[in-house]
């Protein structure tokens, strides 16, 4: 094919590809396609049910809550309830808010209390009867004595209750409820009532938004609605101050920080690459020819990733922007290779370079392709992004330089030492140094500590975190207690699991105060036994009157109770268990509605224990601590092992490919340089007491693939004991500089990746440079 037609064909191919990518990418709905939600990094079909539970709870329930604190500095002793009430009303004008509740508003609590009282025989009596019957069974007395025994117990419990501080406040209730069904909730439901306005402090408003706080719609528009509502409040109550917190504030800050980091890091990387290039390249402007290669590589990576994945996490693009550091390698290698003769056609030159180019690119692509088998979506997405980007980079480099008349970027070669001459002293020193490096590489990694923390995926926002802690403390959230979620496939099963969990918890932390929404609901067994148990208590009325008199009560005072009891026995509550759960759920509004989900496919109930969280719960309890971070940290540790296995398999494949392509001695050198560099860096990190995570491991994999390129491209030079090509030095130092910049990132993941890759690349380049000098010339 004529040179001109080759050139045209290459240009058309590049233009068509670029146009296709641009058209695809401009038509995307990025708000839907790109996620900033940390929980999206966990597989949707994560097999651990507790993870699915936490994911659902965190996404659908917890995340939508926004908390507002209204202060009036001019009257510090009085909660500005009027201003807070106005804020709640104004927020409710916006369709973005589903609920806005002024806490400490007695009317809501009174309504709930009345509803529970009205339904006490359905909700509370079955459990009360069940517990007493089980206790009676332990006494071994005959069944005919049960009624008298129950009456005596009830009167004694009532007498004891009068010693308690709340007895005075609840005396009117006690008259109609001497079995203490509702007063008994004081202990069990105390943790559920939520906070009121702090004494003499600010007024508190609890809200729930209608949109996901992790979507754009749940951020900017919600913030605008808050601003507008507070403007109204300030107009009516000048001087009041507002503090507020919500997941959306973190998500928006995280997104803004990541965007600014991407811009800053990319600029700094570019500056670093240019700085290095200025040292090695004679005509620096010619380096601009590498820009199209990198741009096409990134376009291809974006296009492939967005085509394959329905939703991608923003971190893929942050980490993916590092692709430039790898993509530039092929460009450098082709562009900086001088022709063998002046008239050597481009196609011929390319054919000459094709073996190392393909060996380098395809082996790296094979390695990254293995990441597609990871359980973790982020790793799969990175695997595809980098793999596709590398293929595009190689294709673009090959096609782009076909456009140029004489594609050659002339570099400066720094011959510090004549590598052909043997220097025994230097050789021995280098051999000793390589020996020490070997010891570090073999021994150091054993000292490494690994710890995975999902928070490393997020961008730290100390100011927002401090605000969050302050606001949540005012809302009564205790840092000393623990919160648990208990689930089941039906509400009856969830309630039974809750009983099992409470039984376990009472043994694990005896005396710790426990509150749960589930305790307002009987178990299915107790519910079904309500009618028969009431039937067996035909003489209870008389027995209880007598017992009350014996304990110093005026039994006639309780006549409203005895009337209600009589009616209850005649018409016991009926209906399915689900309807009782529905009755309870229907009573809950505002923060209380967050305490359980009593319908649908995966019902759950929340339990608060005033005790620090203990060891992991046995799986048969179907209960998980809501300290979701720890659960997810455990999950990430599992993913790290999965990534490690895949990386090792990938590395094995890469090495096998090298041995398939190259003779054994060259293959061994090519395999040892990247692997040795990686282990050496891990050894150094281990000796210096560093704690690594999943992303150091991914960085190492990337670093090994990059070093692998340098080992391949310098293979011929090593054999002939000449300095490695300038393209390798330039490429390695550019990569080290750009990744070194990333190690200064405030995002822990980027920092981990940047540091690991930079160290491995520098080590590999040092090995490539010094390795020939440590050998005796043949």
């Amino acid at each position, binding site marked *: 094919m004529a040179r001109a037609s080759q050139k045209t064909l290459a240009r058309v191919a590049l233009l068509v590809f670029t146009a296709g990518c641009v058209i695809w990418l401009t038509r995307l709905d990025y708000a839907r396609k790109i996620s900033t939600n940390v929980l999206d990094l966990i597989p949707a079909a994560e097999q651990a049910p507790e993870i699915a539970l936490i994911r659902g709870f965190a996404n659908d329930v917890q995340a939508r809550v926004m908390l507002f604190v209204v202060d009036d500095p001019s009257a510090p002793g009085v909660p500005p309830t009027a201003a807070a009430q106005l804020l709640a009303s104004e927020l409710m004008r916006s369709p973005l808010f589903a609920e806005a509740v002024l806490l400490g508003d007695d009317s809501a609590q009174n309504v709930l209390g009345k509803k529970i009282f009205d339904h006490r025989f359905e909700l509370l009596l079955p459990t009360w009867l069940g517990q007493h019957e089980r206790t009676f069974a332990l006494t071994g007395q005959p069944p005919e004595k049960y009624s008298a025994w129950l009456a005596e117990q009830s009167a004694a419990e009532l007498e004891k209750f009068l010693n308690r501080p709340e007895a005075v406040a609840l005396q009117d209730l006690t008259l109609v409820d001497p079995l203490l069904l509702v007063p008994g909730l004081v202990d069990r439901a105390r943790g559920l009532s939520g906070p009121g*306005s*702090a*004494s003499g402090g600010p007024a508190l408003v609890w809200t729930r938004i209608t949109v996901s706080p992790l979507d754009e719609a749940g951020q900017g528009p919600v913030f605008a609605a808050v601003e507008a509502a507070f403007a109204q409040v300030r107009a009516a109550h000048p001087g009041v101050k507002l503090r507020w917190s919500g997941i959306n504030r973190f998500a928006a800050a995280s997104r803004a920080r990541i965007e600014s980091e991407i811009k800053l890091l990319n600029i700094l990387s570019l500056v670093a690459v240019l700085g290095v290039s200025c040292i090695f390249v004679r005509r620096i402007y010619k380096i601009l020819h590498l820009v199209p290669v990198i741009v096409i590589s990134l376009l291809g990576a974006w296009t492939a990733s967005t085509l394959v994945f329905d939703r991608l996490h923003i971190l893929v693009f942050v980490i993916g922007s590092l692709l430039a550091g790898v993509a530039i390698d092929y460009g450098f290698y082709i562009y900086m290779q001088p022709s063998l003769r002046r008239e050597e056609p481009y196609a011929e030159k390319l054919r000459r370079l094709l073996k190392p180019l393909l060996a380098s690119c395809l082996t790296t692509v094979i390695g990254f392709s293995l990441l597609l088998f990871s359980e973790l979506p982020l790793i799969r997405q990175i695997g595809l992004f980098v793999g596709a980007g590398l293929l595009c980079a190689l294709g673009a480099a090959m096609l782009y330089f076909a456009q140029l008349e004489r594609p050659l970027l002339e570099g400066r070669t720094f011959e510090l030492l004549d590598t052909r001459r043997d220097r025994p002293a230097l050789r021995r020193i280098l051999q000793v140094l390589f020996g020490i490096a070997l010891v570090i590489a073999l021994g150091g990694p054993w000292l490494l500590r690994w710890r995975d923390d999902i928070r490393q995926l997020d961008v730290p926002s100390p100011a927002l975190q401090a605000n969050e802690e302050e606001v949540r403390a005012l809302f009564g959230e205790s840092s000393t207690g623990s919160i648990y979620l208990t689930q089941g496939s039906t509400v009856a099963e969830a309630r039974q699991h809750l009983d099992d969990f409470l039984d376990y918890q009472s043994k694990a932390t005896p005396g710790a105060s426990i509150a749960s929404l589930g305790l307002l609901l009987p178990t299915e067994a107790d519910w079904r036994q309500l009618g028969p148990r009431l039937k067996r208590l035909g003489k209870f009325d008389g027995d209880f009157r007598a017992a009350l008199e014996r304990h110093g009560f*005026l039994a006639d005072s309780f006549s409203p109770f005895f009337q209600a009891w009589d009616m209850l026995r005649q018409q016991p509550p009926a209906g399915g268990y689900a309807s009782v759960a529905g009755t309870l759920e229907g009573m809950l509004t505002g923060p209380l509605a967050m305490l359980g989900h009593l319908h649908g496919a995966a019902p759950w109930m929340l339990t608060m224990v005033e005790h620090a969280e203990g060891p992991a719960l046995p799986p048969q309890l179907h209960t998980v601590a809501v300290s979701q971070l720890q659960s997810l940290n455990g999950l990430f540790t599992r993913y790290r092992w999965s990534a490690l296995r895949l990386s090792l398999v990938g590395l094995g494949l890469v090495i096998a490919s090298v041995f398939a392509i190259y003779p054994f001695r060259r293959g061994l050198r090519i395999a040892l340089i990247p692997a040795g560099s990686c282990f050496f860096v891990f050894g150094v990190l281990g000796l210096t007491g560093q704690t690594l995570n999943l992303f150091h491991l991914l960085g190492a994999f990337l670093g090994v693939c990059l070093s692998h390129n340098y080992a391949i491209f310098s293979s011929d030079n090593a054999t002939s004991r000449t300095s490695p090509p300038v393209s390798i030095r330039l490429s390695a130092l550019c990569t080290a500089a750009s990744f070194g910049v990333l190690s200064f990132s405030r995002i822990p993941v980027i920092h981990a990746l940047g540091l690991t890759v930079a160290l491995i690349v520098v080590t590999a380049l040092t090995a490539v440079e010094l390795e020939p000098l440590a050998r005796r010339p043949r």
Partner: protein
Amino acid sequence: MKILPYLLRFCLGLVLVASLRLSAADSLPLGPDTLLTDPAHDPAWTELLAKLSASKTRQSQFEERRYFPFRSTPVMLKGEIRIAPEHGLSLRYLEPDRRILIVDDKGLLMRDDEGRQRAAPSDSRAQAVTSAMVSVLRFDLAALQKSFVMYGRRDGSAWMLGFVPRDPALAEMIGTLFVSGEQTRLDRIEMTKSSKQRIEILISGAREDVIFPGDVLERFFR
């Protein structure tokens, strides 16, 4: 038959019983005669109230009688009372159950003998009751006048004060508060909703300017 001593003893017994059952409301009728419109500038009360409100730590024993409409006899509780102006009021119940009740600026806190504690719901009712109690026990005149209509009567060194909440909801909840004593000593606190619904706290063995060591403060206050 020497009937007189029996009659005398019987009458004395009746008087004693009557005095025991006599509520503070009977001793301090709430009317124009006992209304204190400006106690801060009333010469009869200025000095006493100033002494009562002085920042002094106090410790004493107490006996609490709770009268319920559905019981024939009051429920009796006994314990120790500690007042530390900077920390609030602490009631340590010793009989029949052991528990500690702390009333301070943050509200009401209940603590059992093992140190487990729980705060009372911080809703406006509980807040109103505890802030009323704190104001009364501190004799914080400014706060008291804001929330209560005050009544008082002095009889030599004995005195009695009555506090009727201005807020009808609070009045419905706690009724009327009475405190009485001798000189600068507080002897009795009473919350009366009706003759059958009231609480009496009788204070004895009071000591002033008690030094509460750190561990005592930690155990009995928040």
